[in-house]
Each structure stands twice: as structure tokens, then as C-alpha cells.
């Protein structure tokens, strides 16, 4: 239902923009769909359903290097925010040691991976972010997370003053589109890539004052 509404909004926004993206270079969406449908085959856990775009991915793809229209961005972010499930027991932080292992682990969800279960997936964090000072092999597609909690003044994650940043960070990991419609970061909770316990461990890595991130 929600997707339908968003899709309608995306389409009307395009019509307003004169359908330029829809027909850029004389290639319409149907022709692109035909290329995708005829080019891929399923392999292992990677089925052809993976080629289906939800409304957010369709809008962000169409925008290419730019951004979708403001009302589309708003709708994507609203939908994303609504998808976020806070931890059932109200506890946000797990074990930063497990979190660090997850951050280092770049595996998961490829056709060469055996299963799509969260326990077989890594967090892939180091591929894009600096996380600790010790690990020099980090990517730069995302911002540095070194001193993440410290820089945000989190000295006691259980204190009331820390709650806004705790909730923000959980939301960001769960569904990064909540704050940035076309964020490059996977939606770890929303897409079932990591389970609640794993997200808690990543939260601890970022926000526990004893974690190497904050030392």
C-alpha cells in the first residue's frame, strides 16, 4: 500500500519534470527492464527477484548522480522511518567485541555465500568506513566512524542525554534511508541483513565508551 502511494508520487514528480529521465537518450524503462530480464540468471541464493526495484531504489536510480524531487525524498524517508523496529527489550547496546568482528566481516548475500541468514552475514562496515585507529585498511565511501560516540558526547549510553543519539544511530543502521533517501548504505534491519542482536553489537561498537571506536 505504502509503496503504491510512493510510486504514484514518484511518477507524478517525473511527469512534472517532463519525463526527461524516463526517456533519457531514447531508452525507456521497458527497454531497460528487457535488458535486465534477459541478461541475468539466478545463482545460489541470488534469485532474479533481486532485480526488482522498490519505489525508493527506482527513484534514486532515475536521479542518477542527482537527487529525486523533494516530495519524493520526503516520502522515501517517511516510509523508511516507519519501517524501523526498535529493540523489543528496550536495550540498544550489545557487545562491542562482537560488533568489531561484524564490522570487519565483509561477507554476506552474494551468490557465493551459502545462506542469506543474518548469522552468515557480515556488517561490511570497514569496506566504507574508518572504524578504529588500529585498522588502516578501511574504505572512504562513508564518513569515518572513529570516535563516533565520543565526538557526540556519549560518556554513558544509559543516560537520558544519550537517548537521542542512540535512537538516531539505531535508526540509521536499521534503515539508512530514514535520514537520507538515497543513502549508499544498505538497510541492515529493514532488509533482514542483520538481526536485532547483531545491530546491538554494532551499536556497542559505535557507542560504548570502552569500544576501540571511542578510545
Amino acid at each position, binding site marked *: 500500500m505504502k509503496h503504491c502511494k510512493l510510486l504514484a508520487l514518484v511518477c507524478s514528480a517525473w511527469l512534472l519534470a517532463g519525463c526527461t529521465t524516463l526517456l533519457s537518450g531514447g531508452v525507456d524503462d521497458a527497454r531497460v527492464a528487457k535488458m535486465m530480464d534477459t541478461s541475468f540468471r539466478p545463482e545460489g541464493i541470488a534469485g532474479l527477484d533481486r532485480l526488482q526495484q522498490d519505489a525508493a531504489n527506482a527513484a534514486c536510480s532515475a536521479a542518477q548522480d542527482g537527487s529525486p524531487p523533494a516530495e519524493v525524498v520526503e516520502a522515501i524517508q517517511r516510509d523508511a522511518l516507519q519501517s524501523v523496529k526498535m529493540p523489543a527489550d528496550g536495550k540498544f547496546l550489545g557487545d562491542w567485541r562482537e560488533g568489531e568482528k561484524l564490522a570487519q*566481516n*565483509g*561477507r*554476506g548475500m552474494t551468490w557465493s555465500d551459502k545462506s542469506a541468514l543474518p548469522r552468515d552475514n557480515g556488517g561490511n562496515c570497514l*569496506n566504507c568506513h574508518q572504524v578504529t585507529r588500529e585498522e*588502516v585498511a578501511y*574504505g572512504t565511501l562513508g564518513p569515518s566512524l572513529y570516535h563516533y560516540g565520543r565526538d557526540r558526547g556519549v560518556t554513558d549510553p544509559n543516560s537520558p542525554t544519550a537517548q537521542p543519539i542512540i535512537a538516531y544511530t539505531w535508526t540509521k543502521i536499521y534503515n539508512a534511508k530514514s535520514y537520507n533517501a538515497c543513502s549508499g548504505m544498505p538497510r541492515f534491519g529493514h532488509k533482514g541483513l542483520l538481526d536485532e542482536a547483531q545491530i546491538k553489537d554494532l551499536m556497542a561498537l559505535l557507542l560504548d565508551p570502552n569500544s576501540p571506536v571511542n578510545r
Partner: protein
Amino acid sequence: MSTRREMMNRSAQLAGMLALLGMAPQWALAQAASFNAAAFDAKTMPDLMKALDMAAPVESKDVTITGPDIAENGAVVPIGAATTLTGVKRLLLLVEKNPSMLSAMFDVSDAVEPNFSTRVKMGQSSNVFAVAIMNDGKVFYASKEVKVTLGGCGG
């Protein structure tokens, strides 16, 4: 020539059979070739010294080890051993934390410079060593640390 080839083939087959039986095949290979299997099987410096019947290496500025500070991939790490000393018999390249330390052993003659470069595999960050075994039995070394990094996208 052919005798040696046959022997080596036979010993390789024997080694394969022993491997199947879960037995160490090193001696079989060592018997056939001039290959010093014990040296290439040494896990520690004392083992290596025993296998090569060599003295304990002493650090020396006259021996150099070349290699990168960081290796982008442990599958291919360029390292080299050299010395300015005269009277060198052998140059060794060692990787401390590999399953077996010794990677390469060069027998130096008067016709070559005591300076060899090759590429080795490294399972993890480790010190690498160039060791010079002299004609008079003295042994010198130089070392450096090579950090092996993880690759993107799951390795």
C-alpha cells in the same frame, strides 16, 4: 638424467601415497632431489638452524631486506635479500609467521651478485628476514615488518 627424473616421479608418487595415509612425505621428497625438505618444513628458527646446520644469525647492517611496509595482498609480496659482505655462501628469505618460515634459499656463486628478489605468500602480517650464511660459518640477518591488509568486499 632420466634416472633422476624417474626417481623423482617415483618419490612424488610415494609422497602422494604417504599423504593419503596421513604420513609425512618430506623425507621421500628429500631423498630424491637435492631439495632440503627439513629446512622448508622448519616451523621455528631452532628447527631451521638444525636443518641447515647453521649458527644463530646476528643482526647486521651489511645485510638488507627489501619489501613493502604494507602489502595490499598477502598472495603476492615482493621481497628481496642482499648483502655487501664478501664470502657469502647462501642467502635465505624467511617469513616468521608463515606455516613454514623458509621461503627461498639462494646458493651464491662468484658469478652472481648476492642480491635476489622474488615474491612470496604471507598468511598474515609478519616480520620478514634476509639471512646471509657466510663461507666461514658466520650468519647475519636483517629484518623488517610487512603488514598484510584485508581486501574490500569480503576479501
